[in-house]
């Protein structure tokens, strides 16, 4: 069972996807093709890659400016839309970096219907520690 499949079990899960830091989408799952199609998910992956990078830059800058800790590294970025939200994370990559790996796993994300979205449950799956090969 992959992380994508686990993300699809979340309440209100509409889609789950993997993407590169450049935004290019890799694997994906779609539960409701009439509401979220592959083309939408592809642009969403690019948006999420950009937002994660900007949020990471802001968190880094914020910690330097204020002396506060606890913002970096970004665990997840979540965009709350009108009907649905998208939650993305690259946290598993941090484990690989700490293990000295140069080849990093992809970023991951899930689209959740707002009426049943459980953000903390999504964070829990995306923050799960997987064994580094």
């Amino acid at each position, binding site marked *: 069972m992959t992380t994508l499949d686990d993300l699809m079990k979340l309440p209100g899960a509409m889609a789950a996807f993997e993407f590169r830091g450049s935004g290019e989408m890799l694997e994906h799952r779609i539960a409701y093709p009439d509401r*979220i*199609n592959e*083309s939408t998910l592809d642009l969403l992956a690019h948006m999420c890659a950009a*937002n994660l990078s900007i949020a990471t830059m802001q968190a880094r800058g*914020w910690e330097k400016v*204020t002396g506060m800790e606890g*913002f970096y590294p970004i665990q*997840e970025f979540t965009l709350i839309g009108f009907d649905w939200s998208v939650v993305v994370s690259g946290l598993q990559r941090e484990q690989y970096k700490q293990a000295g790996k140069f080849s990093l796993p992809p970023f991951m994300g899930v689209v959740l219907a*707002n009426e049943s979205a*459980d953000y903390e449950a999504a964070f829990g799956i995306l923050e799960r520690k997987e064994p580094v090969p």
Partner: protein
Amino acid sequence: MSIVTDLLAKPGVIAAGEYAYRGDRFSYRGELSENHARVASIMCRATTMSVNMEASMLEALQPLSGLLPPRGWLVHGPGYTVCVVANVFCLLDNRKGSINDLVGFMCQALAAIPSDMI
């Protein structure tokens, strides 16, 4: 009571504030200096404008996609979470508060705010 006052009463919220979409004003309460609150409001406004642009682009590609107008966004760090809905921001201590409760409260309290960003 204002929403900022309501937010500060929530468990784990260490600071909350509002910013004008046109960028000329902000207000805040909580455990931040005036200068740091100004930096936070600028970053929050910039990201809000950015996600609105992105949602408009997605809407052009896929009309009625369900993203537009975006309600807000979250940045979840290891210790703190930045929660923004409409033009209201708050900082949450992850150990002391619930993100689900906070997002639910903010989305409900700010549901009637016009989405034209004026």
